[in-house]
């Protein structure tokens, strides 16, 4: 119940912001009867209707995971963001092994297999990407070996 109402409210606020920024779209000298603004504004209005409907007639509450699982999900998200940033400066092998290992531990809950998975995936995928698919990946940081 509550989740749907919150989502409905969030959706309405986002839609209002969307419509507001649709009004800010610069007009161009090339104009047509509809223009750049109409379609986005129309979409915003439909979304507001959906949001109202969700507030008035919410579905049963979905079964949210416990708080500890949410922390896990947050960690997973941070790992992925970190992985995205480290892929270029640190090369492929190290970040991949770390990220795959952590994700594997989060799913399987066992440290040993997770470490092996991280190392195995990073090595295996590197060979696959670099030598079979011919992607220009760097195994280790570029500056390290000159």
């Amino acid at each position, binding site marked *: 119940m509550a*989740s*749907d109402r919150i*989502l409905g409210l969030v*959706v309405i606020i986002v839609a209002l912001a*969307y419509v507001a*920024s*649709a009004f800010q*779209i*610069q007009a*161009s000298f*090339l104009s*047509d*009867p*509809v223009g*750049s603004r109409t*379609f*986005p504004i129309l*979409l*915003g209005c*439909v*979304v507001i209707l*959906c*949001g109202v*409907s*969700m507030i008035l*007639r919410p*579905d049963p509450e*979905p079964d949210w*995971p416990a708080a500890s699982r949410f922390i*896990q*999900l947050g960690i*997973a998200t941070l790992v*992925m*963001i970190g992985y*995205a940033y480290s*892929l*270029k400066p640190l090369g*492929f092998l190290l970040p*991949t092994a770390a*990220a*795959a290992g952590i*994700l*594997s531990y*989060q*799913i*399987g*809950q*066992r440290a040993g*297999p*997770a470490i092996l*998975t*991280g190392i*195995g*995936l990073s090595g295996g*995928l590197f060979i696959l*990407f670099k030598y079979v*698919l*011919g*992607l220009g*990946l760097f195994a280790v940081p570029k500056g390290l070996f000159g």
Partner: protein
Amino acid sequence: MDTLANLALGFGVALSPFTLMLAVLGCVLGTIIGALPGLGPSNGVAILIPLAFTLGLDATSALVLMTSVYYGAMYGGRISSILLNIPGDEPALMTTLDGYPMAKQGRAGDALVLSGVASFAGGLLATIGLIIMAPLLARVAYLFGPAEYFALYLLAFCTLGGMASNNQAKSALAACIGLGIAMIGLDNTTGMPRFTYGNLHLMDGVDFLVAIVGLFAVAEVFFFIESHGKDSAIGVKLDKITIPIRDIGRSTVTMLRASLIGFVAGVLPGAGASLGSFLAYMGEKTVARDKDTFGTGNPKGIAAPEAGNNAAAGGALVPMLTLGVPGSGTTAVLLALLMTLNITPGPLLFTERPEVVWGLIASLLIANVVLLILNVPLVKIFVKVLMVPPWVLLPGVTMISFVGIYSLSGSYFDLLLMVGFGVLGYFLRKMDVPTVPIILGILLGNAMEDSLRRAMVISSGDWTFLFSSPIAIGLWIAAFAGFIAPIFLRPFLKKPQRITD
């Protein structure tokens, strides 16, 4: 005899050793992707698209590879349905109803072979249907102007939304999220930036591959972390594979009926394979004399949904190729592939690039035969694939997704966007907001707006032009009905729940 000449052209393209190899490769990959729980067809095809680009394949080869994966995934979905009671993908849900009980009776091999043969029948009949119907529909498609296209896009969102969620408001919301994201970037008509907030990365708009991989693959990882990868051990044993000739013989008519139902469901824009297998199963249950054995391992209950879902997979290609409107989530991903390859689906495709269309159709026929061989005698190999534990599989999928998207654009921004879509996808799916309409929205948003604006240019701003032709009116009525009908039909068409032991 045009058709035969075209088919000959198609086989000329498809029978080259390289294309044939791609078809076989695609079938194997597809079956594996379909079989693995948590890695559905749209998912799998989406992850493979960036890799297909890095291989430097030309349009026809890339298309052959991906459609083989697509057909293969439809075959593979049944393996985990039958052995694990977990549908490998959404359309395979109906196969669990009779497949798993039959497997528990010690007839897992029979169930796998029977469903493989049913998949073949469905796939083959649907491909024949595609050969007959697609050129006809392509001719009708010439009559479509911007007003008709606008109504058609609307129809796709309405029927898809009607089926995808239990709450109409949520599916409409999903479609609008997708359409809204599509608006980001430069306006096609005027060239002015919209919703970019001065960010250069957003000028090109949001790449749909980023959204697809994020919403499907990354979100799946979150789901597995939440559940700690529970419930994915093989529940039944598979020993010898024999061919249950009696069961196959008895369900021949079932397969034919189910294929027809599935094909029609697939052709409807936005309805797709899940609806096909569902209607095929329910239809078969209604006409069968032994109704009460459905759900306890009735062979017909395995043959019907499998034939139905594979027929729908073929049927969904008809509107995708002729009108550029996909009939399901996976065909939406295939459409994304076509657009990235600079091929515009539509009636012109049939006259301007016949080698693409007919090469594709011929390779579908070949893929079907290859899949039958892979899935009946060699099914044991694929069963081994199910042994891959989720704590190896999901990290692997994540890493492949990252490298795939990174190789596409080489920007951090897209990777972060992908993670963002993953988080969004997790929350939306938790709240029963379907994600497929979002993909469809991102994919079709600009085309939909363009058709509206072109229609208004033609009519110099007269809105009644949208309802000015019989085709347009028909499409508007169908769209309206498609959106409203499920509300009233829901009490009657309740999806059967998964059997739990």
